[in-house]
């Protein structure tokens, strides 16, 4: 199965990258752009065929490695 782990800066945590992207979009003339947040996606090929188990495994990977839970939150999707 395929799992996608989305990792975003937690609400309230400064996101310098998102801020800079927002500025740049404005500079390019895009109007009506509010807050911009920048995060990561990690796509995993998993041998596991049970969706629930795959999700649990990916969540464990996120907790242990993919996300820094001090400043980031994550969400897992299984495809």
């Amino acid at each position, binding site marked *: 199965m395929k799992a996608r782990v989305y990792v975003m800066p937690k609400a309230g945590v400064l996101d*310098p*990258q998102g801020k*800079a*992207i927002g500025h*740049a979009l404005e*500079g*390019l003339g895009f109007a009506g752009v509010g807050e911009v947040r*920048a995060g990561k996606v990690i796509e995993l090929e998993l041998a596991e065929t049970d969706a629930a188990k795959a999700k649990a495994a990916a969540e464990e990977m996120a907790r242990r490695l993919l996300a820094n839970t001090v400043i980031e939150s994550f969400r897992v999707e299984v495809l």
Partner: protein
Amino acid sequence: MKAVVVVFPGTNRERDMAIALERATGRKPVMLFHRETALPAGTDLVVLPGGFSYGDYLRCGAMAAQSPIMREVAGFAAKGGHVLGVCNGFQILCEAGLLPGALLRNASLRFLSMDCHMRVERAGTPYTAHWQQGAVFRAPMAHGDGNFFCDDETHARLVAENLVAFRYCTPEGTLTDAANRNGARDNIAGIVSPNLRVCGLMPHPEDLVDPLMGGTDGLPMFTSLVDSLAAA
């Protein structure tokens, strides 16, 4: 030779570049802020120096490539002007489409700050005139995203048209994987445009132009430019 050094927000090797240019030309380059919308009259060479323009956020060089001054730089290049991009400047040139390819994260995922050796693969350009074909020289590198990548087609064209200017090598001049610290495709450290006027490379020849800082290996690039451009 009238040189212009473009300063983007976050550029940080503009002073190093100015020192090297002054050493070779005897005159201070014009420092141009990225918001300017015109190059000074009589500009011979535009340099995009190293640094972390826009913090290297999103992709290195991506936001700087969209700066107002880059439209001018592209026009200047289109008219046959000389444009040099070093490190972040190389990344900006690729992002702006003035040179092909892209610079990915170093294969080790680490910032690499160390001296490296390069072999001159294309002598006789305005940037390499003072080196012999195959000459080996040393320069510091300092980057997190210097892993040159291009697709097969582009790579074939670069090779066929002899547009690879520099490759990473051992001090003896051998191309090895170990000498290719950032993982660049085919050990490519720097390339030139088909008209040989636009050049981009990752390492910093401008930081090795004074024996006091460890050598003058980088100086030939600047003296080459002075000769080529004074003659032009």
